[in-house]
């Protein structure tokens, strides 16, 4: 036995290895499925019935919903039991999050307080910090927030200028954090600041600490029911013990919260896509033109087939990744160093999943709106809200451009083999394109596209083999799209021509019919 535990398929291995099996949502146990449907029921009955009130930010509504979710055990699914959580896996927590995310605004409120605001604490907090704060968050009594961005520091997060100084046994913080989700109703903020203007560090800041104010709720395009405001720190005084992790190690807190945050955002972006597909599919079967339901028309069926294929691939990627993350946590987590390693291992899969799912979400919602014609653009109809809400998915948790730079770069830095397994056209061309070592963004972006397409195609293919009969069409339609995208990216990256393989046989009408029957993704 090696003394050091190892993963069978470490981060990045998808390019050079084809696993025998991957985890898919079909593999959740019956108990887990019951939890997932409990979350869906909560979401449909409690959240989806109050959307106008949420968007008006009705006083007390969001905190009350969070408290109610907390009472049902939904606010700490993957937080340890000793801190009021359920101690279950991150993959299950993500699937629950997907169903809690049918509405984009509530998704943010819930996603941050149950996720990224607790993550820094669970990974890097001291025993005292965890025992003090986590039970307040897992019960839904408190709401958490995460404050990294600033007016002059967005993608370039390390350029933050918020300062912290130790004075008379207290940390004194000065600066402005911008775009802070949950700011209006949060009780606890994980704040990134530089000690003495230099050492990037994380702090636990309570709303009631002296010198802490919330300013300027943003008027956004969408997500109107989620609070986004500034956190202003003016000689804010917090106890010395509220430093999270070590001075100068704030980047570990920030970036690991982001790795897992990106993974979770992938699930968050599937929720609205699922809801929109349900509405559009019902509409298409109800709306008659030229003497028949528009659902019968080939071009409408093609839309639903492509939506289903993109959703299917994103879903295959997310829950494969989640199981890998759980495995890494199972092997490495415990010590702070182990926690960090576990959260970092699949960083590139998390990034790829984020880009893939948020772009699938965008595609699906735009197509759903189109299927609904004029009604799609009407505010009384549910799609318009999704259309506005979905836009930010591609901006936060690292813009999709930042993720595209990170992905290929990270892949190279991991030093995993560039020898492609050649288990698909995409894997093969990705292996070839990755040999170009460059910092040119256009090339790097195309390499990242190839990597995420390779991961997605393999995940979609393995799942369709594992779950016989159900996903052949979803896979076939996805791979035909993905191959074409990959060919384009390959040509961008290498400047060389590449011939597309023959398309997989697919049946658009049958896949659309599957969508109509299930009333959403297949």
């Amino acid at each position, binding site marked *: 036995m090696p003394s050091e535990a190892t993963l069978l398929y470490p981060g990045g291995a998808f390019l050079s290895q084809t696993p025998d099996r991957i985890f898919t949502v079909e593999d959740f146990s*019956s*108990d887990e499925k*019951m939890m997932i449907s409990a979350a869906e029921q*909560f979401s449909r009955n409690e959240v989806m019935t109050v959307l106008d009130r949420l968007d008006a930010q009705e006083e007390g509504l969001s905190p009350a919903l969070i408290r109610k979710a907390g*009472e*049902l055990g939904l606010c700490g*699914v993957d937080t340890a039991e000793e801190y009021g959580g*359920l101690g279950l896996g991150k993959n299950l927590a993500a699937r629950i999050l997907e169903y809690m995310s049918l509405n984009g605004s509530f998704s943010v409120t819930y996603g941050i307080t149950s996720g990224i605001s607790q993550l820094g604490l669970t990974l890097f907090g001291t025993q005292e910090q965890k025992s003090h704060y986590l039970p307040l968050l897992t019960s839904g009594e408190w709401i958490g927030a995460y404050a990294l961005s600033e007016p002059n520091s967005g993608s370039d997060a390390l350029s933050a200028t918020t300062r912290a100084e130790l004075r008379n046994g207290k940390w004194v913080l000065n600066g402005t954090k911008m775009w802070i989700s949950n700011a209006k109703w949060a009780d606890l903020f994980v704040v990134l600041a530089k000690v003495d203007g230099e050492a990037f560090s994380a702090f636990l800041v309570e709303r009631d600490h002296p010198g802490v104010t919330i300013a300027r709720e943003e008027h956004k395009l969408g997500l109107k029911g989620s609070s986004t405001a500034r956190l202003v720190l003016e000689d804010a005084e917090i106890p010395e013990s509220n430093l999270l992790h070590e001075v100068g190690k704030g980047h570990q807190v920030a970036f690991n919260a982001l790795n897992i945050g990106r993974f979770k955002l992938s699930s968050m972006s599937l929720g609205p896509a699922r809801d929109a597909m349900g509405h559009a599919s019902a509409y298409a079967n109800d709306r008659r033109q030229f003497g028949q339901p528009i659902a019968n028309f080939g071009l409408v069926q093609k839309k639903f087939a492509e939506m289903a294929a993109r959703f299917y691939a994103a879903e295959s990627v997310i829950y494969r990744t989640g199981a890998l993350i759980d495995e890494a946590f199972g092997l490495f987590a415990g010590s702070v160093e182990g926690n960090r390693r576990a959260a970092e291992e699949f960083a590139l899969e998390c990034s790829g999943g984020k880009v893939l799912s948020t772009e699938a979400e965008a595609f699906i919602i735009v197509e759903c709106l189109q299927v609904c014609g004029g009604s799609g653009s009407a505010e009384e109809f549910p799609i318009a809200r999704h259309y506005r809400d979905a836009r930010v998915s591609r901006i936060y948790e690292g813009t999709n451009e930042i993720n595209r730079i990170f992905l290929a770069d990270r892949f190279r830095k991991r030093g995993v083999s560039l020898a492609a397994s050649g288990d698909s056209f995409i894997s093969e061309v990705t292996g070839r394109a990755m040999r170009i070592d460059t910092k040119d963004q256009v090339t790097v972006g195309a390499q990242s596209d190839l990597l995420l397409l390779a991961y997605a195609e393999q995940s979609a293919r393995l799942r369709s083999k594992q779950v016989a009969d159900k996903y052949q069409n979803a896979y076939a339609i996805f791979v035909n799209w993905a191959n074409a995208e990959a060919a384009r990216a390959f040509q961008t990256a290498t400047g060389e021509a590449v011939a597309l393989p023959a398309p997989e046989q697919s049946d658009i009408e049958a896949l659309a019919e599957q969508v109509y*029957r299930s*009333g959403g993704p297949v």
Partner: protein
Amino acid sequence: MLILVPVKRVIDPYAKVRPLADGSGIDTTGVKFEINPFDEIALEEAVRQKEKNPSVEVVAVSIGASECEEQLRKALAIGADRAILIETTNTYDSPMVAEELRHLIEELQPSVVLMGKQATDDDNNQAGQMLAAKLDWPQATFASKVDLGSSAKVTRETDSGEETLELPFPCLITTDLRLNEPRYIALPGIIKARSKPLDRRPPKVTSTPKTRRVRVESPPPRAAGIKVGSVDELVAALKDRGVLA
């Protein structure tokens, strides 16, 4: 005090169902199954009684194929103490359900049987009444309020107003929709349910259904209506069709 709650596995009442092409039944591919909503109300009521009075024990029972375990696990998660699955793939009509439950009741000797007034799949509304008759127990149907003390007081909504009945134990109560609003299942409840007992046993009933399903088909599609411009036109159209004289 033991409360027995029979729960039936039914097709999700909100799902759009379609008949099989040969008319032999409903196409169940890809559809979700749930606890019959009336039974869920009965279960909720039983669990509330238990929360008020810790000496109450709630037992859920289901008759059907092994998949019914899913609904029984849910019943345990909601708060039943234990569950019994009478495992069978036979088709049951209401008299057989009543007979199967009678056997179980003779063994368990519950004080109260609390069950849905009907199931949303077959809409028979008779298993409870048949069971009370077989047991020769007092029964109160369509309960909108239940109070269990030294006797059972049950309020039921009738066409002429609310009626309150008092029944000695043991008795049988069937539930109406207005009795309560079932709770959400809490995740810790699902975890706790893992360690609660679920017994499987074979059926005792040997009879066969007295009724036979001949055919299942969709209702004919509704023909499009017409739009009228005024009240006069409406009255004229109704007279035309002989609806008004």
